[in-house]
Structure formats: C-alpha cells, structure tokens
C-alpha cells in the first residue's frame, strides 16, 4: 500500500494480517477488499464513520462473521476462521462496545467464564478463581472492584473495566478494543491507557477502535482509516493530524455535513425544567428549551442523558422536580400523555425499543399516530398509507415500498422510519436520543436537514448525542451531563470538542464556562 511506510519493524512478520477481505450483506457492500497488517507491540487504531465497516472487520477478525472473500494470516500463515472459538484459540480477544457481561453472575465468573479453575474434575476451586480474578483487576489498576459482587451492581464504568479484564484473562496475542472509553471518565481513561501501554510493551498487538480522535493521537502508533468499506489510508499517527484523518473518513470537508449555522435568537421559552430528579439516575437538573431551538445534550454513557429524556417523555417517572411545557405545568405519566401534549421521543436503541421487526415500513411509521388515521378504532387504510408514503418521500427512505419489512432495511433507513414515526405524531418538542447512531453519512445529512427544516418551522429539539462534531454542528446551545448532573452549558461560540470533552469527563468545571 502506497500510504503505509516506516511503522512496521523492517522484515518483521505481522502477527495478524488481513488481505482482500470482502463482505456483502445482500446488496450492501460492508467491506470491499480490505488489507491491513497488525504487528506485535503496536497499537493500531481503526477509524471511520458509523457504517464504514469497522465492526464488520473486527467481527471477521474474531471469527464472529465469515468473510465473503480474502484471507486472514496469523504469523504469515493463512488461517481458517469459522467461529469465535477459532479466533480465541489463536489468541485473538475482543473488548466489545456492547456489554457482554452476564449480570446475575459474580465478577469472578464473568472474567473467567468457561475457564474457572478446577480443584478436581467437575469441582470449581472458588478460592483460586477469586484470586485469579482479583489479580487481573489489580493489574488493570482496579483492585477496588470486589470480585464477589454481582455484575449488575457495578456502574457502567466498572462494567467496562470488567469487560477488559475478561478479554485479557488469557494473555492475548491480539486484543481488539471497540470504543473502550465510551463509558469512562477522565481518570479511568488514563488508567486504561497505562494498562494498554504495558500490554504493548509485553508484545501484544492492539487494535483500537474509537470515534475520539484525540485518544487515537495519544495512544495509537498507527492508524487505518475506513470509508464505505474500503481503506482510504493507513499511516503512522505521528505523520498525520486530525484534519487529514477527518478528510479521509468523510471524503469531504466536514462543514457541508451540517446545515449552515443560523443566528438563532431566544424568543419564547417552550420547555422549562426545574430541579428534575430520578433516584439513581440524575438529580437537580434545570434547563430551558426555546421555541425553535436545538439544545444539544452531551455526556458519557451512563451520565443520565437518556434517563432525562425518558422522564420528559413519561417512559420513566421522575422522583422530583417541575416541568413547564408551553406555559403549563406538565408531568407526563406515560408516553401516551407526552404524545398528546406534543412531545415525541426518538430512542437511542432503534432495534431495542424503536422498531417492530416483522412489520412493514407503513405499520412502523404510523404506530405512534394510529388514532389519527382511524375512526372508532377502525383504520382508514388509505389515510394511513398516504401518511406513510408522504414521510417516505420527505425523508428519502429507501426502498420506497412501504410494505417492506423494516428488518430488511439498512441502519440509516431504519432510523429514518423511527424518525418518521416521531414526526407523524405532530409533536412540537422532539427529543432525539442518538439520532444518527450507526447511520451512514448520507442518511446522517438527510436527518440533519430534516431537523434544520423543522426548527425553522418552530419545532423545539433536544439533541442527545455522543458524537461531538454532531452536537457542535447542530446545536444552538450545548448542555453537558456528568454522573447524573448538569455540569456545563456552552453557547455555539464556546462549544468546542476540547471544552465539551473536558467538561463531560470532569477535567474542568463547565460551570465556569457558563454563558
């Protein structure tokens, strides 16, 4: 590859190499001929937009997915990867982005699952097991996590650490880390990086996947950029910078992804939240949302953002606080009440609680507005289909056939169907929780344009996102959450990636930046 130079030890054989990897899902090309080499004692970052093919590549490397074409080589020899067990046998381990812990088992059992030490055949040596697990956690710098505790009693950050411990419980030759810092605060990230560096010194090859470009420049020796399933660059981190990585990732300057910044002036307050709290999730949250305003909400996973959204929507109950909506006190006790008051929520997990798989685009898009297309409980099919078709055109959902099962759609189009469902409710406050998670860049821009058009028409939007450029590019104002509290508020001018990240991870006190 022309762009690769210098980083690999001269003459060394890569621990792991993939060549010509192709993977297609139906008509979608997830990977189109990817070549990457991973060396021992190197941290190799893989970056790319959502849908660029990063997770497909890691799934193929671990054996969870079988490639359509191409080769995987370990120490220069082709290997046959048919199942996750094959990958594990060869010393390839992965720290998953989505939690894989068994919540009703102890920390020890989770870390050593399938490899619990035996005293006699069939008898588990619990003493030795707890000691082993504690030793692994100690090496990670987290001796404080009790190994006998059940996994469900751990915080999001502690669970993430246990995930790492699980992956390194057998000394791995190749360790894949998928967004390992998403749930971690600043000092935890530092400790994790210390551990990663120690692993590297011991000769482990580390594949590091992250959206946070700053981290990549701090920890990675090499970075490979994927776009639309192809490698657009593979180079030493020292030889590049953020701007050129972004260009390789999105294929164009970032600016035209977001609608042009507008001079939004605070007019009428639409939503006003005072002292809102929910036990164990967040407390004392106060903020306003103006009519036609986009308020961004940024924070690490588990910081309480999603829980606030669910309380405003009535999906969960708040334990304290007041909410004023359109000038009247508003406590949504159920999603039904929120919807009739004109508040809609797009949830972060479209497959978990957004879509009904097995049902059509039409059924899904109109699910939250069935009363509007029926009389006395009997559906007016023509009206229902007209409305769905209108949204399919407005949001450019493909395929346009509204009878298609939503399970067959791509992530971006599925997300648009969920958005269509929210829009058909005629809401005036739209709460969007990770609206572009796992969505390709084209769909992303479509969604941004729709949001921009809606706020121009007077819709208020709360935009919850972990995607820093998105929060900054879209919001008129950004709120930052940390550990269940609102810790910062930034106007458009002051909302930079550095400032938001520092505030969210507790590095600086966001209140001092308050407008």
């Amino acid at each position, binding site marked *: 590859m022309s762009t690769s130079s210098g980083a690999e030890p001269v003459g060394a054989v890569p621990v792991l190499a993939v060549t010509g990897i192709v993977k297609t899902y139906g008509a979608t090309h997830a990977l189109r001929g990817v070549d990457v080499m991973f060396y021992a004692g190197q941290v190799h970052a893989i970056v790319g937009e959502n849908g660029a093919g990063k997770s497909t590549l890691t799934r193929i490397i671990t054996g969870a997915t079988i490639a359509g074409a191409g080769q995987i080589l370990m120490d220069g020899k082709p290997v046959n990867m048919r199942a996750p067990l094959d990958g594990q046998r060869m010393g390839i381990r992965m720290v998953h982005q989505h939690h894989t812990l068994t919540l009703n088992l102890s920390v020890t059992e989770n870390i050593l699952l399938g490899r619990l030490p035996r005293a006699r055949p069939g008898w588990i040596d619990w003493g030795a097991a707890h000691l082993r697990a504690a030793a692994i956690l100690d090496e990670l710098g987290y001796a404080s996590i009790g190994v006998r505790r059940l996994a469900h009693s751990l915080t999001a950050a502690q669970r993430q650490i246990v995930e790492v411990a699980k992956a390194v419980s057998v000394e791995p030759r190749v360790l894949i880390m998928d967004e390992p810092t998403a749930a971690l605060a600043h000092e935890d990230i530092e400790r994790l990086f210390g551990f990663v560096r120690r692993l590297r010194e011991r000769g482990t090859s580390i594949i590091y996947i992250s959206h946070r470009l700053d981290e990549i420049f701090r920890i990675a020796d090499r970075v490979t950029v994927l776009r639309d399933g192809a490698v657009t660059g593979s180079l030493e981190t020292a030889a590049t910078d953020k701007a050129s990585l972004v260009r390789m990732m999105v294929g164009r300057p970032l600016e035209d992804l977001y609608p042009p910044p507008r001079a939004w002036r605070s007019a009428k307050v639409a939503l006003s939240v005072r002292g809102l709290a929910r036990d164990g999730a967040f407390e004392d949250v106060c903020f306003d949302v103006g009519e036609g305003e986009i308020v961004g909400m940024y924070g690490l996973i588990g910081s309480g953002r999603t829980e606030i959204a669910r309380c405003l*929507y009535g*999906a969960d109950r708040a334990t304290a606080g007041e909410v004023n909506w359109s000038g009247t006190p508003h406590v949504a006790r*159920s*999603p*039904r009440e*929120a*919807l*009739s008051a004109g508040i809609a*929520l797009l*949830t972060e997990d479209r497959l*978990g*609680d*957004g*879509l*009904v*798989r*097995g*049902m059509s685009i039409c*059924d899904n898009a109109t*699910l*939250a507005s*069935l*009363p509007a297309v*029926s009389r006395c*409980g*009997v*559906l007016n*099919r023509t009206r229902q289909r007209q409305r769905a078709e209108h949204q399919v055109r407005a949001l450019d959902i493909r395929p346009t056939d509204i*009878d298609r099962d939503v399970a067959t759609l791509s992530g971006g189009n599925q997300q648009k169907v969920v958005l269509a*469902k929210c829009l058909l*409710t005629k809401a005036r406050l739209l709460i969007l929780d990770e609206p572009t998670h796992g969505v390709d860049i084209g769909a992303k821009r479509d969604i941004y344009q729709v949001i921009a058009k809606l706020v121009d028409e007077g819709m208020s939007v709360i935009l919850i996102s972990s995607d820093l450029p998105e929060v900054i590019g879209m919001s008129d104002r950004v709120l930052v959450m940390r550990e269940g509290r609102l810790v910062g508020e930034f106007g458009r001018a002051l909302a930079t990636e550095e400032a938001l990240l520092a505030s969210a991870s507790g590095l600086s006190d966001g209140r001092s930046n308050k407008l």
Partner: protein
Amino acid sequence: MKTVLDRWTLWLECRPSWRALMPVICFLAVLLVGALFADALFTERNASNLMRQTVANGLIALGMLVVILTGGIDLSVGAVVALGGVLFAGLADQLGIAPALALAVLAGVVAGVVNGTIISRFNLQPFIVTLATMGVIRGVVYIYTESPISPAHPSFRELGATMVGPVSLGMLIMLACYGCVSFFLNRTTTGRATVAIGGNSEAVRLAGINVQSTVTTAYAISGGLSAFSGAILVSRLGIAQPSLGFAYELDAIAACVIGGAILGGGGGSVIGTLFGVFTLGIINNLLNLLDVKSFYQDIVKGAVIIFAVLLLARSKRP
C-alpha cells in the same frame, strides 16, 4: 398501464413466504395421505363429522392465536371450554338458549380479562399465570357441578347439530369468527397494536399505546372464544361434563404452530391457523378411521407437530 407481464413479475416479487405457504402444504400432504389410505375420509357422513369435530378446536385456536401474537400463551383455554359448556347447559333450561349462551361467553371473557389483567398489570409470565388460572377455573367448574348436565330444552342441540346444506352451523359460525378476528387484527388500531406488541412491546408502549389494555383484550378474546367453543361442543354432545376440554390447550397451540405462528410473538396469521386447525382435524379423523389406538394417536400427533416446527425452523433465513 400495467401489462400482464408486469403484473406477473409483481406477483412473483411479493409471492407468499415459505412460512405462509407451509400450512397449506401440510394440509395438502395430510389430505393426500388420507386419500391414499382411507377411502372413508371423503364420504359425506365423515365430512360432516369432521367439520363438527373441527369447530371446537378451531375457535379455541383462533383465540390462542391472538394471545400468541402478543407474545403470550393461554393454558387456561381447556378449563374455560368446560366453564362455557357447563354454564350453557346448566342455564339453558331456566333462561333459554340465547341468554344462557350470552352468559357462558361472558364468563369466558371475564376469565380472559382476569388472565390478561394479572399478566399485563404485574408483568408476570403468561405461562405461569394461565397455568394457575387453569386450575382455579377447573375448580370453579367442579363446584358448579360434579355430575354431567343434560338439559331438556328442545332446541339445546341445535347449535351443534344443525346442518346448513352440506355445512354444519358450527362451521359457519367458526368461519365468521375467523373473518371477524382477521378484520380485528388487520384493520383496527387495537388489532395492529396486538400484532406489534409481540414484535416489540417496549416500542409499542413508547408509541403511546396502552399495552395493558391491548394485552387484556387479547386474553378476553381467547376466553370468550373458548367458552363459545365449549357451548357449541356441549350442544353437539347433548351433555356437559365438568371434565370437558381436558388438555384442549395442546391441540390449540399445535394448530397455531402448524399454521406458522411463532411462540413468543412476531408471527402468525389467521388463514395459517385455519389451515393448521384443518390439518390437525384431518389427522385426528384419519387416525380414528384407521382404527389407531388413542395412545398411538398421541404419538403420531406429537411427531407431526415436531415435523412442522422443524420445517418452519429450516425456512428461517440464516
């Protein structure tokens, strides 16, 4: 303007899935076996017998389908059949046929509402709840009568025994119920919500739909249809035993499964269930005609169900 060719390709593109065709194939296969091994299957007398025997399971399976679509299961249907049957027979002499029938069906609906309310209000497992209410309802039936009831009302047997031309009255009623439930599931808001809950109940709740009342409605439909089935059954037999309907839930679930329904929700159709009911009915009838002993019949039925589920499982995309 669409040419004939266009229409043909259109049809090919939206051809029914394997899961939808499977019940029809099963039905035809069983019919073929019947034609080969039992000439008596197609005699007029046997056909009318078959129709009358199929009605009971047909109504129960229809209610079961609605419950299965929500992701639940109703094990109490057999006991509700007995409840409907003994109430209809017990009240027919005092109140007359129509009021007795109405009360019997109402009792079934109430049983269903109780089931559905406990399940949806407290978020309990339908299997456990209906297993418990199955015992409770059977107990109530035995308290109501320990001995068989045989009413003297002259038109008591009309509901189950009347023939309308070549078709039994019960069969016509059953088919009408299939039409109504099909309309309910496809064309009403509650019906669409019922189907959606089995696919993703949290998404339905967040769409502002009352999941509790929708689930309760499903169990009420199941209870009402089961009690109705019990009334038709005792009318055909002329006598109401408190032990009526024992283990009927198994045949009802089997008919739904053969008809392509997915236990746990997310799949199933009215027309598929209808074919499932007929398939099972013919198998029962065939085994009787071939003089197979009843315990061998159970073995054959069990094997057929496993076979059907295997075929369906293989049809899933990898």
